[in-house]
């Protein structure tokens, strides 16, 4: 539930796929399509001569290479920067607090009351870890549409009813809400996984 821009991810993957598809089929078609192979050959020859002319026409003073090479390096650096931007886009969106409101109901400009995510995480994990039917708990918070959302992930043992897990976890969150004064928006995810399968398979109910 992080802030990854999923549309960007998909557009990026699509474009890379498209480029690979076009380049790959262009290369594969050479054997079966003489006209296309001839075009490729012509284009290769003319591009070669154009490049040679361009390189000899724009030498960097005092060296044997052209400004064009320098330009190519800059283009590559630009591509690398773009990739770094895309990588930096992944993830993020964590929220440090689960709750924020003015201390005084009357005066909205008064100091603000903040409940730190780690407080909720400690409290919930402490309660959840005592439960015999769960093997793992993660608690965090994310900002969804500028609103903090508490995220509780639990991994129950094999065979435990998710309905029971949900009800008990919700009860804990309600208790937390009583302490904090207001129920934070909550997303609960119930996971299966290696830990559940490998965990000691005891009958808990």
């Amino acid at each position, binding site marked *: 539930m992080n802030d990854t821009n999923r549309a960007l991810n998909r557009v*990026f993957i699509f474009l890379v796929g498209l480029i690979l598809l076009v380049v790959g089929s262009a290369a594969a078609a050479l054997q079966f399509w003489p006209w296309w192979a001839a075009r490729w050959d012509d284009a290769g020859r003319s591009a070669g001569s154009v490049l040679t002319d361009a390189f000899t026409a724009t030498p960097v003073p005092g060296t044997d290479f052209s400004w064009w090479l320098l330009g190519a390096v800059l283009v590559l650096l630009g591509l690398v920067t773009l*990739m770094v931007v895309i*990588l930096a886009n992944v993830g993020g969106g964590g929220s440090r607090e689960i709750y924020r409101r003015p201390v005084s109901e009357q005066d909205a400009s008064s100091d603000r009351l903040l409940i730190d995510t780690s407080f909720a995480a400690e409290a919930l994990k402490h309660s959840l870890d005592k439960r015999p039917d769960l093997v793992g708990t993660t608690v965090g918070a994310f900002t969804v549409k500028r609103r903090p959302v508490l995220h509780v992930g639990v991994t129950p043992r094999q065979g435990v*009813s998710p309905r029971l897990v949900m009800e008990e976890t919700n009860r804990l969150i309600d208790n937390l809400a009583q302490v904090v004064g207001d129920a934070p928006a909550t997303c609960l*995810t119930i996971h*299966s996984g290696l830990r559940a399968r490998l965990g000691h398979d005891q009958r808990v109910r």
Partner: protein
Amino acid sequence: MTTPYARIVRRETHSPRTVTTIVLACLITLACLYLGTELVLRMLGQPALLVTPADAFGWVAALPTLQPQAAITLGGALLALIGLVLMVHAVASGRLARHQMMHEGRAVIVDNGVLASSIARRVETVARLPQGQAAVSVSHRRAVVEVTPTSGIPVDDAAIRSAVEEEIASYDLRPPLRHTVRVKTTGTIGS
């Protein structure tokens, strides 16, 4: 208090395609760095790591005349296939094996595996079977329960069916699950 639960549920039940993005971005970065290194080495007049830029260009330009042609065709076809797979990957919904459990005021998401093991446990309890003799698989809209009775001990078909129905109904899932119960005609040797 309006919370964007629809958005949360959508994000929790669909793949963000993050892994593919990271892998692709890293590969492209590496390729760019390699090409850049070759160019810089060329500019410094140093020997190339693998091929000089001029040789690489010449190779691409001469692609139609290189031998063996079959290898080039194969390589091209492979690239095209990878591209096609990536495009499908980008467009496909990327739905995860999860369901939403209805609860007022909260978003609750359950892995299908949790549902399956819970249904299996319930069936085993109702049918008085040892663990592992009810195999349940849960897909997006269907749960298939396969019961293997212990040889010589008949199981109560109707009780199993109603237990499965009740169990699934108690989850109140979106999308709802239909179910099929199959009791095998051949049993296993009791343990």
